[in-house]
């Protein structure tokens, strides 16, 4: 397990727009990923969840402001310390599950021998050991997501960002993925962006609600539920928040 970070993954005054003259997705956004916690990142379509994760992962560069981890804002540090799993996990043609996970570690700069042991551990963590010699291109959607997670874990990052990890999965595959997720702990924290709010409600410590490029809530799950009638689901609370414009 990687050592804890000296300072967390953080967005500081981030301004981002896709094109120079397009409206900003974020205009001075500040946010800190809570260390040791699993945070559910919620927001309507177009709120900027995927963009935020890409910025935190170092895939996109802020036009102004910065993203820091361990006190530095170098892209190389973000690549090293932050793991990111995209919505669309692509199998590499011709590679087996084991080989693809090894490769995912190799591109980060790990030695080949190190990659093998990292891959074994990561594949075990996502419960794909039985399929490790199968071609990645033959996996189902749910298995492919777990492969993506293994590939991300094999990087030995300190923070884990998962973009819509259960989108499009059938209930069984989704449950299996949540089971895997439940067993993960990352010193720098885990952020899960999703629309399947209630599915993950019991597995997270915190909730952050992003709407139109601004955080409307960032706190513990219990705080999020506060003020809503007892028994109201997390999804309903989320909908109510957006509908009423609370926080």
């Amino acid at each position, binding site marked *: 397990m990687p050592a804890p970070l000296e300072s967390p993954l953080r967005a500081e005054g981030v301004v981002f727009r896709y094109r120079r003259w397009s409206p900003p997705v974020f205009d001075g956004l500040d946010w800190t990923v809570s260390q040791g916690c699993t945070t559910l990142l919620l927001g309507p379509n177009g709120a900027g969840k995927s963009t935020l994760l890409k910025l935190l*992962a*170092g*895939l*996109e560069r802020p036009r102004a402001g910065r993203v820091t981890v361990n006190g530095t804002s170098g*892209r*190389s540090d973000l*690549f*090293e310390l932050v793991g*990111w799993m*995209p919505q*669309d996990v*692509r199998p*590499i*043609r*011709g*590679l*087996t599950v084991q*080989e693809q996970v090894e*490769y*995912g570690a*190799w*591109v*980060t*700069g790990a030695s080949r021998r190190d990659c093998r042991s990292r891959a074994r551990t990561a594949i075990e963590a996502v419960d794909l050991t039985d399929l490790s010699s199968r071609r990645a291109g033959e996996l189902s959607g749910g298995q492919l997501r777990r492969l993506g997670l293994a*590939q991300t874990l094999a990087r030995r990052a300190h923070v884990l960002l998962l973009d819509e990890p259960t989108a499009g999965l059938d209930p069984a595959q989704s449950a299996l993925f949540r089971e895997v997720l439940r067993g993960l702990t990352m010193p720098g924290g885990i952020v899960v962006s999703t629309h399947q709010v209630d599915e993950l409600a019991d597995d997270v410590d915190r909730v952050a609600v992003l709407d139109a490029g601004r955080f409307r809530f960032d706190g513990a799950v219990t705080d999020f539920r506060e003020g809503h009638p007892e028994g109201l689901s997390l999804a309903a609370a989320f909908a109510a928040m957006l509908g009423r414009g609370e926080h």
Partner: protein
Amino acid sequence: MVAAFRVSGAWWFLPVMLAIGVTLPVLNDVPLTGYPVADLSGAGIGLAYNAPLLAAMTSYSTRGWAQLHATLRPRRRGAAVVAAGFWPLLAGGPAVGCLAVCVSAQTLPQERAGWLLMATFVAVLAGAAALGVALSWALPVVVAVPAAAVVAFAWVNYLPATSSRELHQMSPMIDGFATTSQPSRTAVTATLVLTVTLVLGVALAMTVTRWERLSRPLTSVAVTVAVALSVALGWLVVTRSSQELNLLAAEPRSTPLSCAEYSDIEVCLWPEEAGRRREIGATAARLNQQLRAWDLPPISTVTARPGEEGATTVDAGRGLAPGPMTLSMAAGYLDQRAGCQVTIGRDTEVLVVALALAANPAEDGLTDVVSADSLAQARSRLDQAAADQAAWFRAGVSDLRCPPAS
């Protein structure tokens, strides 16, 4: 290691390349002369298909590789990533292409010119592979794959078909020369400079990126610059060369001759012809008997290298039957007497055949290479009285004229 063969498709593509490289020279009836450089060059016709195929294959195999790696957020350089995934194709393609050439030619390079020719083939195949990778990197796959095939095909096959001497020197298809010539320094240097610049240019462009976020216009510019620079440098080598350029991209062979003496005749042949020294010495001795009878100076030196002063040139390549070999020596004697390579017209041909017949009464193989009319005329001359034969032959020799200088 095994995974790279699967990812790149090399496991099935390289055997196909080998088969094409070995089959194509056979289908085109490329002759084997025993001269390694000429045979390797002839077998290089396999590159006509293998280079464009390799370019298209690398382009197809590496499709989407950069985009895939954008999501993997690599900390390694683009060139390292491509090399790791596709080395069997990038290194194996040139290696297998050259293996096919050697198998077809049934020889390995044995002298500097041969090694340079093989280096050119390796570089051209590597250049084709680099071109494929570069186009796949810069363009959408539906454009990149056909573009890679067409550009490589035009480069290898079209340049030798143009009438431009400069363009001829920049094509790898250095072909069509005899046992007396070798690929020109200019052609080899220009092709090597062009291909090495292309390979290094593409490798450098990929080394400066990590592929986490690629701009297609920028990659297109990088590829265009690499290709343009390589062509410009190749062109510069050709135009700055002091060597006279020709459409064969060939120059006189520089291999040292292997010499020995037979019956006071020095016989100097190319190394691969050394086994025929005794036969050629004996033939020259028989011609000398006739020449002495006709009161003409005998042959003192027989050489395989044309243009040597005071020597009679002979073509003694592998597979050349004694008859044609004798004819070539007879023609070489006339050239020596005239002091130039005479034009073989009808009258001259009769002289050549008559001299050859004097040395080769079996007429072995002559009927296949000279006209029946010349053969009949030569025979009738040899049926005349010895004094008349000699007078006719000496008159013919004194009438020999050199062709006007071009």
